[in-house]
């Protein structure tokens, strides 16, 4: 009996010790005492050396926390109790957060470096005047193919995917807006279509792609494409970039016909404790040399025109990730369609998953 009590005591003590230690570790994140800048970002989406540089230049202590989906980030900030000074949602989430009054207006006077951002990346529908957000990285939705199975140049258009050649060869990204969007564009409709009839048509067309679809997955697609498991993957440019780094046989194209243009953006939540530092950080990151360094580290496309020029020629002129003007003009940004239409997209997509096999 005595032994048991001692053991329980020891475990309790260890737990208390660990709890105290964890508390100590977390303290800077919770405090936000004016000298801290708390960044809430996607994992591995910022060059740590730039963080150090910023700390040295300004004396702020940067705390870096990560999330893995827009929804998780949204829920955490909405619940309150957090003091994130800066976070990086995708464009549709910017609209959603703004509608939920979670965002603070940006004091643009504090961000003079915003002038380096290309005109085609500003004043988008999700934030007309960029009052709340500054683009961080951007990318597209496109087709990754493996030249072991698909001839170079064989696929140029979305419609080429419907060819009988690719039976059971295509991996589709598990996202209703993107999958339906592909079908909508191939029919010549907008990716933000709200007409139920057109959506039905798009779903029917998607259904006929069913026999070509090998699987509908998200993160695991990287692994499969790298291992030559499938010939074609429909996914975002950022993912594609990571695949291509690991498998030289992979190539990425954005059909000229049109596709999705996505943005990840700096925003400052209302709950932020150190807005000044957040603005300083945004401005710091927009400095061309910093933006270029970050773009090289992360591998995504930067909207910072000055920074683009600083990138190595091989990167800058890579049409796969910096598409030409003509394609850029045909790219569409997702609009927040409201819960009802979002549900309709998802229901149709779910039906497609059920019946198309």
């Amino acid at each position, binding site marked *: 009996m005595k032994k048991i009590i001692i053991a329980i005591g020891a475990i309790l003590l260890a737990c208390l010790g660990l709890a105290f230690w964890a508390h100590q570790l977390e303290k800077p994140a919770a405090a936000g005492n004016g000298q801290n800048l708390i960044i809430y970002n996607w994992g591995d989406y910022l060059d740590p050396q730039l963080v150090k540089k910023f700390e040295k230049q300004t004396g702020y202590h940067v705390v870096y926390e990560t999330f893995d989906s827009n*929804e998780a980030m949204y829920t955490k900030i909405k619940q309150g109790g957090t003091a994130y000074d800066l976070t990086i949602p995708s464009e549709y989430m910017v609209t959603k957060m703004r509608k939920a009054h979670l965002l603070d207006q940006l004091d643009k006077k504090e961000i003079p470096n915003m002038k380096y951002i290309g005109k085609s990346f500003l004043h988008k529908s999700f934030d007309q005047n960029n009052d709340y957000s500054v683009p961080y990285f951007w990318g597209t939705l496109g087709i990754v193919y493996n030249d072991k199975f698909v001839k170079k140049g064989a696929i140029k258009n979305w419609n080429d995917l419907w060819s009988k050649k690719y039976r059971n060869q295509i991996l589709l990204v598990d996202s*209703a807006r993107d999958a339906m969007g592909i079908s909508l564009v191939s029919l010549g409709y907008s990716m933000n279509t709200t007409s139920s009839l057109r959506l039905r048509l798009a779903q029917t067309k998607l259904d006929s792609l069913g026999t070509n679809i090998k699987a*509908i997955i998200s993160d695991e697609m990287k692994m499969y494409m790298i291992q030559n498991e499938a010939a074609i993957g429909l996914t975002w440019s950022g993912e594609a970039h990571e695949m291509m780094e690991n498998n030289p046989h992979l190539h990425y194209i954005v059909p000229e016909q049109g596709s999705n243009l996505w943005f990840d953006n700096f925003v400052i939540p209302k709950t932020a404790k150190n807005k000044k530092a957040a603005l300083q950080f945004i401005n710091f990151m927009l400095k061309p040399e910093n933006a270029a360094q970050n773009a090289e580290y992360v591998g995504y496309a930067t909207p910072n025109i000055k920074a683009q020029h600083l990138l190595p020629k091989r990167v800058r002129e890579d049409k796969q990730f910096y598409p030409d003007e003509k394609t850029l003009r045909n790219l569409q940004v997702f609009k927040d369609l409201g*819960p009802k239409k979002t549900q309709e997209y998802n229901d149709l997509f779910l*039906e497609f998953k*059920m019946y198309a096999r």
Partner: protein
Amino acid sequence: MKTKKAFFLVPYLAWIILFVILPILLILWYSFTDSSHSFTLSNYVTFFKNGTFLKMMINSFWYAFLITLITLLISYPAAYFLTKMKNQQLWLLLIILPTWINLLLKAYAFIGILGNNGLVNKFLHLFGIGPVNILFTDFAFIFVATYIEIPFMILPIFNAIKEISPAVIQASEDLGASKWQTFRYVLWPLSRPGVESGVQAIFIPSLSLFMLTRLIGGNKVITLGTAIEEYFMTTMNWNMGATIGVVLIVLMILVMLLTNKKTKRKKVNL
């Protein structure tokens, strides 16, 4: 004495209320309200009017049934022979061992085995059979699910068979029953409680296996679990998601009742 008993009950009661009853009530509340928190039955109307949900429900049921059946067919003989083995503890350990490994790791291992460049296809290649598409098929899904559930079926059956006194079997043989008759009228009824708890332990979780439908089934196998995930995570329509959850809970209770009833009747017969 009584107050002391009540005192010790408090933590358990608190646990059950906080983590079992309240969540279920919350799910029920969500399923009977709409996004503006007013009472409605429309979620249920949508569910039962919409062919997609019904088909999904049947799908879930069908896959769970297949998984349970195949697991049972493999596990019963295995458990039986296990009771006849010499080093039972060792064999049992070997059977339990895979359950110590994280489910996700096992799923990823199977991706490696079943893939186009996986072990199975390399083996088939030796005979000139060129890459067969195994991953992302119904077969792969049921195969992996069965593999994962087998230990949970073998253990209760093993325990049930072990409890049967060998004298009963010997008596049956002495009295001239054939092997089949011994199995049908002695072994099977006596080991049935084990089978029933095994079936419950497998059928119920199999109804909502959604990680495997994604990783191994490539989202081409769609069950109610997939839909629940979509409604809670993607579209954040918690009301509809909760409704599907309630249907799933009702299905599970039905399965429990069905399997338990038989146990009672059997006890009366004995």
